[in-house]
């Protein structure tokens, strides 16, 4: 059966609560019971202000927590994120007032890199054993809250790529070579139950950190991360079948790129939103990356040594 993906048009973060309510309810709501432990994975990829479009907006998290507290009783809400090569979320949550929001809605903060880990077996493309945070042993519902962004390596970053940030290692850059395989594997083990993509302020151009903020004013929601990402890819301007991690995740059975789309009608071009770089620039940048990859310090010094 095809899963439903919804697009909700929202005018700015001040209307995020209404937007989130409608985005969640239009795909059948959350399958949560009172007293459940709910994990919320946000995206704090670097020390970038919320107005840059690089990180989950604090007002978006505020609206989601408001929705959960208003509709369910006695939930144990845990907001999760891990350290990354260039990110220390413990500092970022203070920097941009996430800590006050967590306190306001009585939600816990959990840095996946700072807590014990467990090992799971996985029949994936890259891992056969994978180390994950022990919190994934004791939860009832997992909501992933990514940003809608372009990504110079994976083309787009949305629901599936957000779980890459659940890997508890800080130096995740070492997986970049095989990132499409790693993302698919990670989603086999830590598959979200619900995806709520913050596309109110998205990022185009050379994301995921230093791209161009775009006021796209949408929320994309669904229960299947592959379907949700397929819709996100279409919005950004890519064919989902040509995006490595979406293709791999579908093959591994994480979800399906076939979906039923409902909600508001949204055409990025009508709103003058260009997520993608022009083709000449994309090719120019991939050529630049190719040249950069050829140069490593080891190779560089070896070559200099030989020349001497």
């Amino acid at each position, binding site marked *: 059966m095809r899963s439903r993906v919804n697009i909700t048009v929202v005018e700015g973060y001040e209307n995020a609560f209404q937007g989130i309510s409608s985005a969640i309810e239009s795909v059948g709501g959350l399958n949560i019971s009172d007293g459940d432990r709910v994990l919320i994975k946000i995206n704090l990829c670097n020390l970038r202000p919320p*107005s840059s*479009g690089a990180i989950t907006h604090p007002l978006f998290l505020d609206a989601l927590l408001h929705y959960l507290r208003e509709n369910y009783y006695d939930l144990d809400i845990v907001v999760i994120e891990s350290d990354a090569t260039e990110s220390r979320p413990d500092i970022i949550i203070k920097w941009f007032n996430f800590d006050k929001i967590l306190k306001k809605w009585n939600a816990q903060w959990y840095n996946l890199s700072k807590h014990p880990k467990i090992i799971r077996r996985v029949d994936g493309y890259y891992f056969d054993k994978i180390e994950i945070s022990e919190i994934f042993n004791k939860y009832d519902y997992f909501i992933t809250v990514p940003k809608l962004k372009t990504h110079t390596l994976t083309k787009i970053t949305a629901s599936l790529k957000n779980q890459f940030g659940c890997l508890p290692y800080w130096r995740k850059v070492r997986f970049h070579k095989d990132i499409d395989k790693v993302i698919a594997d990670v989603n086999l083990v830590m598959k979200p139950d619900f995806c709520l993509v913050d596309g109110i302020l998205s990022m185009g151009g050379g994301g995921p*950190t*230093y791209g*161009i*903020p*775009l006021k796209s004013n949408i929320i994309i929601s669904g229960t299947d991360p592959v379907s949700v990402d397929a819709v996100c890819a279409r919005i950004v301007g890519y064919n989902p079948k040509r995006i490595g991690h979406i293709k791999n995740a579908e093959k591994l059975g994480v979800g399906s790129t076939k979906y039923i789309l409902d909600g508001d009608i949204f055409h990025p071009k009508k709103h003058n939103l260009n997520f993608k770089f022009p083709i000449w620039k994309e090719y*120019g940048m991939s050529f630049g990356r190719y040249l950069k990859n050829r140069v490593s310090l080891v190779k560089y010094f070896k070559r200099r040594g030989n020349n001497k």
Partner: protein
Amino acid sequence: MKVGLIGAGVEAKEVQLPTFSSIEEIELVAVADINEKSAKLAAERFDIPEVYRDFHDLLNNKDIDIVSICVPYYLHKKIAVDCAKAGKHILIEKPMAITVQDANEIKEAIEENDVKLCVVQNYRLFPSVIESKNIIEEGRIGEIISIHAHMLDFPSISSEWRMNRRFGLIEDIGSHLIDIVLYINDFKMIKQIYAMGGNIGGNIDIIDHAQIMIEFEDGSLATLDLSRMTGAKEIALYIQGSGGLLHCDVRNNHVQEIHQYSTPLDDIPNTIKKVTKIMKGAVTGDYFIGAKQYFMNIVTDFIESIKRDTEPPMTVEEGRYVALVIESASKSIKDKQPIILKSI
């Protein structure tokens, strides 16, 4: 609309009078200047029927709807207040005033007499400034963190009122830059201003280069760099946002967005765009006329605002804000300390 002009100097003859006479809706009725010879010359050249030495005589003419004040800025207050009392709408050259007290008196006079006032801040209408403003409003560089603006001009020693006043640099060219920076930053409330300036010869008490630092209430910062001694004519802004950098080359009318790195991949097409724009401007002549061409837009917008009873394109409140920065910066240079503004 019948227009009277007070001040028949170079600015009037080169910019204002040619513009007025090219607008069909406008009938030039009178000109007044303390230098009667200059007034007569202007009247002959632009076919103006009435010539006065005293501007009060011009104000007594009941047919006049709009008075354009085109005199050195330190004379603005008295003339503007008298114009308002005579019930005339006012088009006033920049800066509207150089002290907050003067600006307040002008504001009170125009409010009491229910007339409209528009400050001629034509640099704000450069397409590059408008484009920058639109990019910022679209959120493409996030929220403004800091603005670095510089305006370099050649010295104009022949124009005594521009050069011989101690803070002439800030009051004259500075008022353009202050207006652009405040406009770009939405005329946000200012917390404090610190300015430094000096004379490169060091032998005379006239500021020929200065830097004004502004801290806004929302935490954003601005640095304004002014000089008449560099031997370059430049006006540009680097606007840093939380989501990128914007380089606004006002003089060459070009805007460049920088996200992450600025690479030749961006520089080459940007340079081509910039050169094409300049070439186009050079062929049409716009490039050489510069900011003066936008005076026309201000006049037509002002007439429209009078007809429709709406807000003029550049308001008295904005003029007052520019006056506040000019006064505080001058005071800061004099006292060698920052000026903390609690309210205006």
